């Protein structure tokens, strides 16, 4: 036998073997946002080495693919955050449905109402996860009508990020160096005035340009802190005529009108103002903790050794703050067979097992055992914000079109601040705009 036929035979056998291996592979499509960072984390499988949302989620996926024993390959399909749900809806219509998809808990209700998401009780049970392990807030966000529709991944919320150096200058710190925080609307105004007198800068910074989420979240938070809600049971109406809503709107308008809020800032500029010492407090989410902390470690920074973060203080008495969360869903029609289902559930298990690593992004863990763990409490400032897992307020899942509702209310609250739109007109406009969204009227 000559060498050539022998070599060809080996190649052919190899090809058959490879093909056989290829058949065993189960690919599952994994749709998410959080960006792409292949150059930095494309080959990292040790999640502990990663940082930031993109780095951590990428390394979790890499780790899963590298350690999967059943030949499962997760194919990540990344979509820009803004139009994520538009594309997801388009994919569902065209039958190109991912097996596992990230979903905000505030969007879950819409997808469940449209019968597009699989209940997960049995699936999670099969991988050893029960809803009892979820934090209170995570359970509120993912259990609808008694069924679990998503695996919660985190809770993100609305925080006060504080420049302690400026607060010291304004004599708004306690003896232990912690900030003195307002507990009533009157105190809030008094603190803001004192701060401005001492520093010449506004007490607060939040985006008012090209941004509707911030004013909406302030409003929802301030109403919830009065034990009230903008969204009465049933999810078909919005209540902005209540005393609680009126007081919340008046407080926001007063803060802005009296110059206690940085003006003319979009999202990036509001954060910049805080980092440059142009405002004492920036009201923004959990996700900026890491970046702000890094800035505070730099000598010469306005924030140098003077940064802390707390939940939005209970201005109206009750501890409550707007919150939402990222979760993972299995979309109906996205899983072709039992092998793919097993693979998808395996991925959910891997995500759940890395809930602590994910909490390094700043988001609160969705897992009770993680939030109660010493490791989590050792992360910077997590002791300050952990209470949000039980004190958070999320808009009920029966309120539909929550992203559009956020825009409508945010625009009106901004109009009240920026153009001095009368309060009564703001209330009427919100009722009309949100009413249409909630009732489905055109």
């Amino acid at each position, binding site marked *: 036998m000559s060498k050539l036929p022998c070599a060809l035979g080996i190649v052919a056998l190899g090809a058959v073997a490879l093909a056989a291996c290829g058949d065993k592979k189960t690919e599952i499509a994994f749709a998410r*946002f*959080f*960006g*792409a*960072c*292949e*150059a*930095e984390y*494309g080959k990292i499988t040790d999640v502990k080495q990663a940082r*930031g*949302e*993109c780095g951590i989620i990428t390394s979790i996926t890499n780790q899963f693919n590298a350690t999967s024993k059943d030949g499962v390959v997760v194919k990540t*399909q*990344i*979509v*820009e*955050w*803004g*139009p994520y749900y*538009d*594309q997801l809806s*388009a*994919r569902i*219509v*065209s*039958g*190109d449905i991912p097996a596992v998809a990230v979903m905000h808990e505030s969007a879950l209700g819409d997808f469940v109402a449209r019968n597009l998401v699989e209940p997960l009780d049995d699936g999670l049970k099969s991988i050893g996860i029960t809803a009892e392990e979820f934090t209170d807030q995570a359970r509120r966000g993912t259990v609808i009508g008694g069924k679990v529709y998503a695996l919660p991944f985190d809770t993100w919320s609305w925080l006060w990020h504080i420049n302690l150096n400026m607060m010291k200058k304004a004599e708004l710190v306690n003896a232990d160096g912690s900030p003195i925080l307002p507990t009533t609307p009157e105190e809030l105004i008094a603190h803001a005035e004192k701060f401005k007198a001492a520093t010449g800068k506004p007490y607060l910074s939040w985006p008012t340009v090209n941004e509707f989420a911030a004013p909406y979240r302030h409003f929802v938070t301030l109403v919830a802190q009065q034990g009230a809600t903008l969204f009465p049971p049933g999810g078909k109406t919005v209540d902005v005529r209540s005393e609680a809503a009126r007081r919340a709107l008046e407080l926001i308008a007063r803060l802005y009108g009296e110059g206690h809020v940085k003006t003319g800032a*979009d*999202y*990036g500029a509001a*954060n*910049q103002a805080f*980092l*440059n010492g142009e405002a004492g407090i920036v009201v923004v989410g959990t*996700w*900026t903790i890491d*970046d702000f902390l*890094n*800035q505070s470690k730099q000598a010469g*920074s306005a924030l140098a050794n003077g940064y802390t973060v707390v939940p939005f203080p209970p201005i109206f008495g009750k501890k409550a703050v707007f919150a939402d969360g990222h979760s993972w869903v299995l979309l109906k029609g996205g899983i072709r067979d039992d092998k793919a289902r097993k693979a998808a559930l395996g991925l959910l298990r891997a995500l759940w097992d890395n809930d602590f690593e994910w909490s390094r992004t700043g988001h609160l863990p969705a897992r009770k055992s993680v939030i109660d763990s010493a490791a989590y409490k050792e992360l910077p400032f997590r002791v300050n914000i952990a209470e949000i897992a039980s004190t958070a307020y999320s808009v009920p899942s029966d309120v539909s079109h929550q992203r559009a509702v956020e825009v409508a209310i945010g625009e009106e609250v901004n109009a009240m601040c920026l153009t001095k739109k009368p309060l009564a007109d703001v209330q009427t406009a919100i009722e009309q705009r949100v009413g249409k969204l909630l009732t489905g009227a055109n």
Partner: protein
Amino acid sequence: MTATRRPISGGLAGRLAVLAVVLLAVMWMTPLLWIFAASFKPNDVLMVRTDGLLSPPFTLRNYQNLIGTSQLLRWLANSAIVSLGQTALVLALSSLAGYGFARTSFPGKRWVFGFVLAGLAVPEQATFIPLHRLFAGLALHNSYTALILPRLAAPFGVYLMTQYFKAIPRELEEAALLDNASRLKIFLRIVLPMSLPAQATLGIFSFLTAWNDYLWPLVSATRPDMYTLTVGLGSIQTVFAQSEGIGYLMAQAVFAGLPIFIVYLFFQKHIVAAVSGTTVG
């Protein structure tokens, strides 16, 4: 038809005019230069300040991260295929339709032409859902066909070519007809070469529209290997890129604009002529 260049007259008025134009050009270019400079700055620096772009530190990290995206060349190729394919087909169809409307007569021509022009008034968004469902029904999403076909109905192109063909003297075609040339031959050999300036205008606008298109590729090309450059670059942005990833965002903008810039360098005479409504001889 040829464009003629008149030198700017001397004297104070001329110099002031030049100065004003230069100032306007600098104003117009400032955001572009800002984008370019920011693309070489570290993200954590830009998170704090975006005004000190000309002072260190500088970094190539944003471009390294961008080029390290494995599908980047694929997205670039997809955009090139879609833009070139769409441009070629729009030119072919608009020229044929325009010639038909300009030179032939058929029953209901005015109504049909009016119907085509009415297309100019229909906003793109209004056709989105039926179009998406149509392509979903035909199982054509995630294909070049789906990315190119919907944009071939170009009322502006038909209108432009119709008007241009109408301006070409009929005598040229009549002479060819006397020589027994067929209608197709006349179109291909005589009329089409004479319409090159209009073709260039239409081609440039079609190419730029296709290259910059975002919404339709977003909902039609949902598999990452079928993303066009605009959708692909959007997908790799971090969630709060406008604050924590400005440098990376600007590197993406530079990269996305680079092919168009190169096209402009090669075809600037034609592009200027197309935009100003004149022709290049």
